[in-house]
């Protein structure tokens, strides 16, 4: 945001610049354009360089977080472009023959990019790229709990609970040695780092806002060799090694309240006191600073989580391409990957109060490991039967499986009885008991001594040791055979058939390797084993279920052990198998009826006999038509139709989807001094499906759920439709050789509708106009020195309902962004 004084300064600067323009125009003789590349000869090299730098002033009104989420272009000095091209005149430079080096964005823009290419004929080709992008993301409607205004207090969540401000730095280096030879070597390395602060949330008695520090790194190494000893045949072998490491930390730093003893407390971000979230009366005393929280409310006193996933992804790949056999072109590859991701040191600790389970926190840990073993192969052949007739066959095989395992080591913490009058909820001490010291700390029934953990009947096990085993796999085979016929040199058509077979398998199993239920609680009695008989070990007809053992000395009930694991209650070890077969007809036409007209059309009609999800289509129809017409050399008219129709409209699903796009574009270039480009795109997106959900007390949704046995009592036809119009136009005009003016506009006009489950939900991204006009002027003020000034406007104008009645008011989504840039470009 600019101050008033700064705005005046910018205004004066713009005025001076505007006055400077005509004066300069009069003073200079036009001898060329700012686009004309200048080059100098330096030794054996032809060298072209240009640099453009300047200042951008950004004046933003409205929702700055949205502007930064969408554009994030701020004020400051910027390097808009620096390009260096060097070319050996005789293609025989000492170290290189060609060098291209380009950069933009440095100085504070969200996207900074450097690209470098150096090559020397026959010897090497080296490419490097550095990309740094800032990801500021705070669109406040995502994950917003939409707290009601009627809540006491009413807490409006003005920032997205999942906002972030991260930076990603990506480096890619690729070197090809002896690119022209029969034996070619390729080496590559990529290094990607993504880091920065953000926020996340957690499920619990209430949902706390947690600060998450993102940091993950990927290092990828590539080595390959191409053999070209066989005529018209290339065989390639690649070894790819990727390593991933993540070091995110998550902590609760959002302590906006205190308890009566001064302990900072977090009541979460969901405030709906009528719905007892975080409780009916969360603030015990609003006059203190900060306000005093009610101790029996759901809340957090501390939370932290750390884990360091480490992944390795080795891949071997063998590929070939050959034209050796007459009239037969072939290519293919086979690859094997064995990925592994392990987290040896996951640790989570929460000090909290959950009223439903009377829990005072938990710790979670235990090593986890998952693998992904993948085998992929493909083959494609194009056989020319006659001069006009081709048959093309493409086969692809992809098989992967992901076994995973987690050995959990969890403890659930419970409070002691009140140590002082009035002590409750978050103020209660946490019982410091372990299986080893339990009999000492809490020696006798009914286990309600000062240090004994106190449970409710629904409390989870105190100690949880489980072995989690998961498995997911897919086996895919697909083959496409096409006949391609050239009716004339200007008309070709394709007719094809695609068959795909997929088998998806999953398997989940959890085994107890040591669950322990400590006794103790206000409802403890001898008849319920002093509340140790709960959860999996709840009494059945007055007796412990099989697998649960009561220790008569400590009163602890245990279930399973490392040497005698027991299936977790409800364990479903059956393997799920889903088979899907798709048959599809493919049609294609490409035609050049005249030299001025080019047409192509692609159609696909597919049918799947099953679907993996409710919105995976059983019926697929794709219609793509594209045309380009050039009536005269400087006029080009293009049009496209792109329609996707997907359906899974079986009983109780009723899923229909379509994505229909129609586009037109016209380009006019009557002479080098005038150029125009304008177009329009219309897209209509629609999806629907029957859904079931719970909404107790609803007067809006009263239709019984169409799905038998669904836990959701209400059903509805969910729908989402979006009608998007996109218009754009650019006009470039060079009134004199030294001056280039450009005017442009692009606008996205989106109107939509959807099913609103929550009456407090704003229309959000359903209705808005997003327009981006721009004007720029460039003139050469001296030989090879060009002054540029540009104005870019970004206007997001919300057209829907921003704050429905009853919602704790959120900031408006609108913003108006004016960016003015002043720059100099020098070619040397």
């Amino acid at each position, binding site marked *: 945001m600019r101050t008033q004084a700064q705005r005046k300064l910018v205004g004066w600067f713009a005025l001076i610049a505007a006055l400077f323009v005509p004066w300069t125009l009069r003073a200079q003789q036009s001898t060329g354009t700012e686009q004309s590349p200048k080059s100098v000869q330096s030794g054996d090299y032809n060298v072209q360089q240009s640099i453009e730098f300047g200042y951008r002033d950004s004046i933003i009104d409205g929702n700055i977080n949205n502007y930064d989420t969408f554009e994030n272009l701020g004020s400051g000095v910027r390097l808009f472009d620096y390009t260096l091209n060097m070319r050996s005149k005789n293609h025989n430079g000492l170290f290189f023959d060609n060098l291209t080096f380009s950069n933009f964005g440095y100085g504070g823009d969200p996207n900074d*990019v450097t690209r470098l*290419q150096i090559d020397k004929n*026959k010897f090497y080709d080296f490419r490097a790229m550095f990309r740094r*992008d800032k990801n500021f993301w705070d*669109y406040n409607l*995502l*994950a*917003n709990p939409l707290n009601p205004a009627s809540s006491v207090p009413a807490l409006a969540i003005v920032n997205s609970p999942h906002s972030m401000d991260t930076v990603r730095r990506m480096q890619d280096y690729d070197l090809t040695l002896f690119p022209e030879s029969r034996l070619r070597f390729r080496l590559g390395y990529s290094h990607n780092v993504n880091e920065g602060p953000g926020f996340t*949330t*957690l499920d619990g008695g209430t949902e706390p806002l947690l600060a998450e520090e993102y940091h993950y790194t*990927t290092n*990828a190494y*590539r080595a390959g060799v191409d053999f070209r000893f066989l*005529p018209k045949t*290339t065989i390639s072998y690649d070894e*790819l090694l990727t390593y991933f490491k*993540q070091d995110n930390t998550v902590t609760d730093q959002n302590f906006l309240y205190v308890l009566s003893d001064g302990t900072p407390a977090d009541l979460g971000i*969901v405030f709906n006191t009528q*719905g007892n*979230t975080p409780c009916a009366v969360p603030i015990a005393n609003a006059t203190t600073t900060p306000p005093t929280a009610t101790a029996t409310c759901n809340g957090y006193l501390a939370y932290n989580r750390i*884990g360091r996933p480490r992944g390795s992804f080795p*891949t071997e790949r063998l590929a070939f*391409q050959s034209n050796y056999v007459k009239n037969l*072109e072939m290519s293919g590859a*086979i690859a094997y*990957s064995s*990925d592994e991701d392990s987290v040896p040191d*996951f640790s*989570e600790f929460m000090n909290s109060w959950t009223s439903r389970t009377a829990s005072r926190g938990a710790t979670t840990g235990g090593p986890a490991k*998952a693998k992904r073993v*993948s085998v992929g*192969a493909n083959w*494609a*052949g194009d056989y020319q039967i006659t001069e006009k007739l081709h048959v093309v066959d493409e086969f692809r095989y992809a098989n992967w499986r992901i076994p*995973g395992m987690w050995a959990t080591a969890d403890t659930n913490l419970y409070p002691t009885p009140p140590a002082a009058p009035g002590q409750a909820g978050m103020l209660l001490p946490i019982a410091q008991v372990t299986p080893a010291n339990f009999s000492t700390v809490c020696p006798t029934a009914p286990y309600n001594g000062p240090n004994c953990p106190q449970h409710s009947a629904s409390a989870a096990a105190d100690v949880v040791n489980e072995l989690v085993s998961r498995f*997911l796999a897919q086996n895919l085979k697909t083959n496409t055979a096409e006949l391609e016929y050239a009716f004339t040199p200007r008309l*070709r058509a394709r007719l094809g058939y695609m068959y795909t077979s997929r088998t998806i398998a999953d398997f989940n199993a959890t085994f107890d390797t040591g669950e322990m239920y400590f006794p103790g609680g206000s409802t403890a009695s001898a008849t319920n084993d002093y509340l140790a008989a709960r959860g999996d070990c709840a009494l059945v007809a007055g007796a412990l279920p099989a697998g649960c053992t009561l220790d008569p000395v400590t009163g602890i009930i245990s279930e399973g052990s490392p040497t005698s694991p027991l299936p977790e209650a409800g364990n479903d070890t059956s393997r*799920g198998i889903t088979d899907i077969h798709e048959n599809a007809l493919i049609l294609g036409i*490409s035609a050049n009826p005249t030299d001025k007209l080019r047409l192509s059309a*692609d159609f696909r009609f597919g049918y799947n006999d099953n679907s*993996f*999800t409710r919105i995976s289509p059983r019926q697929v129809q794709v219609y793509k038509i594209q045309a380009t017409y050039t009536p005269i050399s400087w006029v080009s008219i293009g049009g*496209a139709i792109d329609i996707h129709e997907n359906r899974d409209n079986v009983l109780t699903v009723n899923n229909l989807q379509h994505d229909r796009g129609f586009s037109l574009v016209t380009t006019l270039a009557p002479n080098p001094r005038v150029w125009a480009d304008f177009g329009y*795109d219309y897209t209509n997106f629609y*999806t629907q499906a029957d*859904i079931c*959900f*719970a*909404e*107790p007390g609803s007067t809006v949704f009263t239709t019984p759920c169409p799905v038998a046995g*669904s*836990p*959701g009592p209400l059903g509805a036809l*969910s729908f989402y439709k*979006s009608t998007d119009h*996109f218009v754009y136009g650019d006009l470039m005009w060079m009134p004199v050789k030294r001056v280039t003016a450009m005017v442009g506009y692009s606008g*996205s006009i*989106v109107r939509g509708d959807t099913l609103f489950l*929550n009456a407090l939900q704003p229309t959000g991204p359903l209705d*808005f106009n997003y327009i981006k006009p721009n004007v720029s002027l460039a003139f050469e003020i001296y030989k090879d020195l060009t002054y540029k000034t540009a104005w870019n406007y970004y206007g997001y104008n919300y057209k829907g309902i921003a704050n429905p009645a009853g919602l704790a008011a959120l900031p408006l989504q609108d913003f108006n962004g004016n960016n003015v840039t002043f720059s100099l470009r020098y070619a040397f």
Partner: protein
Amino acid sequence: MGRVKVFNSALVLTLLIFVSWHPAAAQAQQADSSKSAPQTATTTPEKYAGADACKVCHADEYSSWEKSPHWKTTLNTRQGPSHQGCEACHGAAANHVADPSNTSGLFLFEKASPKEINARCLVCHASSTEHMQAINSLHAKNGVSCTSCHSPHHATQAQFLLVKPQPQLCFSCHLKERAQFAMPFHHRVNEGLVQCTDCHNPHGTERPHQLRASASQDAVCFKCHADKQGPFVYEHEVVKVEGCTACHTPHGTPNPHLLKLSNVNLLCLQCHTASFANAPGAPSFHNQAAQFQACTLCHTQIHGSNFSSFFFK
């Protein structure tokens, strides 16, 4: 797995047979030198004129070609004049030099069909890793030739001799994508951070939409979004089975995080309604009106988790 091993073994065996069988055939092949030359080129060296002869009349074309990477064809002494200079692409020109009106022996790109043009270019370029899957090229099948995007003589981009820079080049035909990338939520293609060719190989891949793959044969998305790749103990199965596009529209949408729907809950409920075995229905304690505006408020690790079957952490 047994079938997989059998299949892999068969494929490797096929390749070995092909390679081992090949030397004998290669000798025969070498005897017929015409096979290594472009199909439309005449095979006797006498009919080649050399690039300098072309320069006399086609000075502008020669000048642009001389500055381009294609100049290096003149260094190709191993494969002879049919792979050198102007005639490497345009065919033997001796007859044309003798009689400029005689273009019968030349390969004229403006007269050739897209398939002929592609075949012409692939004589040299087929062996590069970018072009090895050219048979699968959807561009080629739709009549888009190499010279639709590349111009050896009139390129505006030194790198790859493109006729226009990305993404404008791609937007020339892919009109709908231009609108998608102008949406508030989009991948930063217009900004120059990401290029179309980062995700797609315009020359063809074995995957749908000419998509590239990650190094470990997974979705190309994971090259940048590495934290979503896993593998996880608790996979959100749809991510791996149906891919990222089950929930996201990759180019750009009106919706945050490139989601297909404006409301996260509806997106989740479309699958998580208990009429389908693969996705459990939403439990009855999820009151859609009272509190949970977004499922991802609690299910934050929705792409996969190692420590929560409900993707809480």
